[in-house]
């Protein structure tokens, strides 16, 4: 018999400061980014550190842009639907079961970079945006 410690479960006190003791809020529906056309420049690709995100203002919405180790780019709406704080770009990027994810820095739920779906609750989805690189500059498009 083996009681496997559930490594995905963050035990109490796993994060510091008031946030870790806060009750986990129920997720809100993600803010729907306005649709439009055109692309917004974010930053030179060289400024985008692999496996870390930045936040850009796209049509007035905060958008998190990530670059993975294999140089793929992803963009998600920056608001963490669980905490409603605009923080996803500041999460840790990694993989879970082979899926590239970002962990919310507040309560550590994981969102698939490709689809925006929360691994902990597939009903919760963060909006995704198209990303491209033009002349060495990262650009985010309308969803």
């Amino acid at each position, binding site marked *: *018999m*083996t*009681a*496997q*410690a559930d*490594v*995905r479960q963050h*035990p*109490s*006190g*796993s*994060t*510091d*400061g*008031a*946030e870790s003791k*806060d*009750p986990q*809020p129920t997720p809100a529906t993600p803010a729907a980014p306005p649709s439009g056309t055109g692309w*917004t*420049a*974010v*930053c030179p690709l060289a*400024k985008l*550190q*692999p*496996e*870390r995100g*930045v*936040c*850009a*203002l796209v049509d*007035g919405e*905060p958008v998190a*842009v990530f670059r*993975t*180790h294999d140089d793929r780019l992803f963009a998600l709406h920056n*608001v963490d639907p669980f*905490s*409603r*704080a*605009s*923080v996803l770009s*500041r*999460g*840790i*990027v*990694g*993989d*879970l*079961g*082979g899926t*590239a*994810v970002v*962990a919310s*820095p*507040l309560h*550590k739920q*994981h969102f698939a970079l490709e689809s925006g779906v929360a691994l902990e609750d597939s009903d919760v989805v963060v909006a995704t945006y198209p990303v491209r690189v033009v002349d060495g500059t990262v650009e985010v498009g309308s969803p």
Partner: protein
Amino acid sequence: MNARTVVVVGHGMVGHRFVESLRRLDTDDAWKIVVLAEENRPAYDRVALSSYVGDASAEDLTLDEHSDPLVELHLDEPVTAVDLAARTVRTAKGRDVAYDELVVATGSVPFVPPVPGRDLDNVFVYRTLEDLDGLRAAAEKAVSTAGAGRRAGVVVGGGLLGLEAANALRQLGLSPHVVEMAPRLMPVQVDEGGGALLARLVSELGLRVHTGVSTSSIAKDHRGGLTVTLSDGTELDASVVVFSAGIRPADSLAREVGLEVGERGGVLVDERCRTSDEHVWAIGEVAAVKGRTYGLVAPGYAMAEVVAERLTGGDGRFTEADLSTKLKLLGVDVASFGDAHAATAGALEVTLNDPVAGTYSKLVVSDDAQTLLGGILVGDASNYETLRGFLGEKLPGDPMSLIAPAGDGAVGVGIDALPDGAQICSCNAVTKGALVAAIASGEATTVPQLKACTRAGTTCGSCVPTLGKVLASCGVEVSKALCEHFSQSRAELYEIVMATGLQTFSEIIGQYGTGRGCDICKPAVASMLATLAGGHVLDGESAVLQDTNDHFLANMQRNGTYSVVPRLPGGEVTPEGLIAIGSVAKDFGLYTKITGGQRIDMFGARVDDLPKIWQRLVDAGFESGHAYGKSLRTVKSCVGTDWCRYGVQDSVGLAVALELRYRGLRSPHKLKSGVSGCARECAEARSKDFGIIATETGWNLYLGGNGGFTPRHAELIASDLDTTTLVRTIDRFLMFYIRTADRLQRTAPWIEALEGGIDHLRDVIMEDSLGICASLDEQMARHVEGYADEWAAVLADPDKLERFTSFVNAPGTPDPTIEFVDHLGRRVPAGMKDGQPTDLAALGLGGVPITDGARIPMGAPA
């Protein structure tokens, strides 16, 4: 239902257990229980009494309260008379209480031999919390007037309790002498060979042993101390004397009413624990079962169970008792079990005496050398629990091989070899079979769960390590894997990183893990690298590994803003510093609050403002407080000798020095410390991971405390240390913790999980039992030398500064999602959380802001 009444006289350990057992078995609520107790507090763990001079408080020792409408507990109301015919008892408050059944559980009283001077002040016995309070007060007084020399204390009696008492004196700062009439210490438990080694081992601990002599007299000397004269003419100067010369059953009540008593005292009962009156029962140390009394708690518990069964229609019987004992004295192992003195006809003794290693082991076996009858272990009793399990059972191998040191052809005794009937916890009579059943049913997969569902390990605690072994032998193994990317535990990974000298996460996961990592392993490895390789946490690849708090060197709050905490070493701050902090808070619109760690937290800072805020703070002479890191937080202090009339050492000076020494040290979890300038402990040092309390002659060091979800008191690891030894010991403690703890495991559970607990820790960091101290010292020296303020470094590095912006493509644009509101004079994030705000009107404060007069200054964000 018409409840009948059972009156219990005495609320000691056994009386308490009886109440619990009866309430458990009496499912029909047929009995109302009235407990009349002499002591002014509810039952406490007398077995652990000695820890009261160490780190346990009276509350820690208190046994579970009976919260049950059918139980009445009257404290401070001893029974003074019994009327057997009328079935009533009279209490000292003059009350008469009628009973249907009476249970006498009055325990024992310490035996004080008729030595002249035994009634003098500062002469104590060692049985109750009150006794220890008196002893502590006297010892403290003696220590505080001692001047340069150390004051002595004399313990009369060299048995198990005498040695505990001697150790208590030592912890209280006195030099203990032990006077034992028999030719050796612990004469009941050990033989001559074991006694000789024991005397040597305790002498090494600083106890002075006088065997084969008795105490002739105690007299006052002219300086207010005591002179103890021994039968061989020796005179000992002492500040206190403790009698621990055995116990006598507290059977006076029974004698007065004519209940039969045993030949050597104790209320005579049969194996049902019934006295000569059919409505009166006796249990615990006061009972003489078929003439024999028992001075241990386990037999008492068994008797409590028997009577509870009898009162609920069962047919419990007290048969025989396990008299195994283990000395719980700091650092010296002594265990004795079964027929230790080979009294059984034909018994054989197998002895192994190794004076060099300081161990003595003896097994007593049946004449065919097949069955274990008893044994004595001195110096190393690590096999005690397992060997005890074989009592009366067939041995799994040749007796000598069981006590031979490892490597000498020893087979050792594995838990697997133990029969199901083997008793693992003798205090609570829990067999291996019962534990295995609890594990197999899935009820328990951890030691705490096993304790909760079987009661094993809840009394003296000596069997707790064995519980872990039973779990392991059942194949229950909690995966130690750090996360899905690393199958190693944090400690194993640390070893690997230390041994290989790898300096980047990519290399480490490439060679020893799988995948790309996640929010568990990345910060964990970043923390290891910080303590091994050093360097700035935002250097190169290291930056992407950090949790957001470390990434922005500030604490993220619930709306995505950050809080900022400059370091105030030891809680010291100058008026200029206060003004600087105040003006920064004002200019950036930050909410300020004093933290529990004696510093000032500024809330509501936007990412973009962090560098500007820190520039101001660094210019004013502040540095990062690392409130964001899993690292040393604060060393809290009281004012100590500087200002306090009680202070005996400079607590502020030490706190500042320690905070500066360990600042920036990354660790598996946050680390907190405190320093108090005297035993009054105003800095609450014992609630810290490492707490220091000043003594007349040095510092007492306590390890493994914490507040938080599961508060813990730190345990004393060493007393009266000089400052150099103190700092060295803390250095090693911290580094050993950093190397071997699990991720997010604070020091208390870490120590608990160490096999051998705090004693093992003491061996490792004070005796260098693992031979790693030089390396621990060297690693700490590197940390101290390599320290640099993280914020100053960021401010000096444009690359690092770049990340402090809300939007890469619109630097300077504030994040529109961040809003604040004024809530009763407090600046808080917009969007209230459930449960807020506190309804001040309900508290009779009618909506008046808590802060009186001037409101908390809140400038508009700069």
